[in-house]
């Protein structure tokens, strides 16, 4: 169990993250410069906050009101910084055994052997870090941090330096190691795919503040604000005004159109709201077919203005009829659907927004 509530004045902004994590992998997600690494350093005890509280599995590591600041040596928190910080002058075995100075030689060798086995580093004991591949370096860093059975493991962008091909394998390995060691992990990343693949819980950090914290599906599909929606790459984010709040759903005026949204407890008529729809959840109405029940709402006509082929499918840009914008909607389509719909640039198309997939957010002042 981790509890963080700290403040630290920095040159460009105030770092003031507040979040917690249980026995799981918690992801600290945010853009570069948001203060993610500094937050990890504060938890590890390398960076001293101005004030606040850091509590880790029963240990009060930092508490400004009680004058507590446990030095990093006594926190027993495993820390793997970005780039791994392996000691270049020490062998793999000595790197891994570095934190075991309290044990005698025999116990130390035993623990190092266990770690080498756990992480599949057999045969590399006498190598120096520069003689290892990126993936091997990462595993040595993990072994070094895990060898003294830390109460918490902090990973700063652990996959950033690796090839895309090896990343998913190593992610699986990390999940596997986590299962076997049952260690609580806080992982920092700016990569949304990674955050989603690894995080049971995701905390979104931006300019030093946690904007949202919750289960990953919640953060992904129900962002708390426009900024979070942008950060989780919700491609369709709109500003509208509530026309009516009915029990069966919100009616929103949006650029001269009426959009029917989900039922909403807080929005009042006349209130400005933001709403978003993930690009993969916009439906294209197949011409000449009766609309399916999910397609009966919010059907708008438009024209395809651009198509980008990505790794998993097409991203289709649609400008709605009468719009002045370059485009209004982005639609992500798997390749087989794209071909079945027979889409092409400059073709007319009808799209449908199911109220269930529309997420409404209060507009920030």
């Amino acid at each position, binding site marked *: 169990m981790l509890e963080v509530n700290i403040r630290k004045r920095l040159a460009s902004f105030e770092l003031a993250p507040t979040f917690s994590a249980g026995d799981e992998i918690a992801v600290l997600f945010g853009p570069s410069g948001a203060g993610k690494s500094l937050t990890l*350093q504060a938890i*590890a*005890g*390398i960076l001293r906050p101005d004030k606040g509280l850091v509590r880790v599995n029963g240990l009060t590591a930092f508490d400004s009101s009680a004058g507590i600041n446990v*030095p*990093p*040596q*006594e*926190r*027993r*928190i*495993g*820390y*793997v*910084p970005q*780039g791994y*910080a392996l*000691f*270049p*002058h*020490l062998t793999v075995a000595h790197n891994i055994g*570095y*934190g075991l*100075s*309290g044990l005698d030689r025999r116990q130390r060798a035993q623990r190092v052997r266990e770690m080498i086995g756990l992480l599949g580093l057999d045969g590399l004991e006498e190598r*120096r870090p*520069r003689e290892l591949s990126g993936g091997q370096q990462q595993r040595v860093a993990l072994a*070094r*941090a895990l060898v*003294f059975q830390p109460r918490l493991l902090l990973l700063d962008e652990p996959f950033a330096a690796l090839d895309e091909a090896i990343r998913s394998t190593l992610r699986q390995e990390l999940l596997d190691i986590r299962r076997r060691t049952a260690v609580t992990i806080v992982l920092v990343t700016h990569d949304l795919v990674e955050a989603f693949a690894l995080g049971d819980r995701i905390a979104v950090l931006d300019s030093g503040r946690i904007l949202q914290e919750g289960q990953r599906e919640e953060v992904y599909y129900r962002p708390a604000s426009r900024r979070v929606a942008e950060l989780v790459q919700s491609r369709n984010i709109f500003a509208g005004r509530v026309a009516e709040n009915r029990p069966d759903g919100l009616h929103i005026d949006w650029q001269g159109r009426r959009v029917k949204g989900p039922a909403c407890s807080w929005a009042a008529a006349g209130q400005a709201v933001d709403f978003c729809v993930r690009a993969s959840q916009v439906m294209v109405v197949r011409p000449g077919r009766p609309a399916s029940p999910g397609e009966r709402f919010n059907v708008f006509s438009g024209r395809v203005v651009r198509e980008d082929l990505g790794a998993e499918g097409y991203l289709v840009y649609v400008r709605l009829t009468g719009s002045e914008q370059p485009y209004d909607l982005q639609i992500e389509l798997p390749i087989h659907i794209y071909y079945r719909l027979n889409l092409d640039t400059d073709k007319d198309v009808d799209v449908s927004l199911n109220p269930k997939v529309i997420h409404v957010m209060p507009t920030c002042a």
Partner: protein
Amino acid sequence: MFDIDLSPLRLSLQVAALATAICLVLGVALAWLLARRQFWGRGIVSALVTLPLVLPPTVLGYYLLQALGRRSLVGEFLEDSFGLRLAFAWEGAVIASTIVALPLMVRSAQAAFEAVDPSLENTARTLGRTNLAVFFTVTLPLAWPGVVAGTALAFARAVGEFGATIMFAGNIPGQTRTMPVAIYDAWQSGDAALANTLVAILTVTSLLSLLVIGRLLRVSRW
């Protein structure tokens, strides 16, 4: 040729070795402080340490006489309390050489410490090792090549020290007449043959010393 008085050579090596040893300990400590710690007066300390590189050695010798000479406060106190005389004694030559050689040691070691990635030290601290242990197992080994280079430079400078030494320690045969002083003395008294011989001996000895230092403090590669 074989009746040459070799006491200047012995004295030079003794003074230079001692001065280098002091430079190593003091210089590494100062270099680490300047590279890793922010403190009040850091800029002044840095400038003071470097000053001997800029000032003529005779000026340093003059300062040393004023500060530690027999009629100075400190000099008087040392002589009265401990019977220790620095001016015009071989110990004074050690002090002169140390001050002149220190900037080379500090500059070189400071650059080496600054080149060590602080995240290595920070990570080492999270692994439970004391700050002192981290210094000796991570910082110093990684900065070692720079420290060795600084030591070699300091030794070379100490062996060649002349100006501050002759001002502060003088030219007393067998006590403060180091090789550079002896060479100057021989040349001044018209003994070109002796000057030639001493110059040759000093050159060869310095070369050998540098080779031995490089060997002793072997730079490990990783």
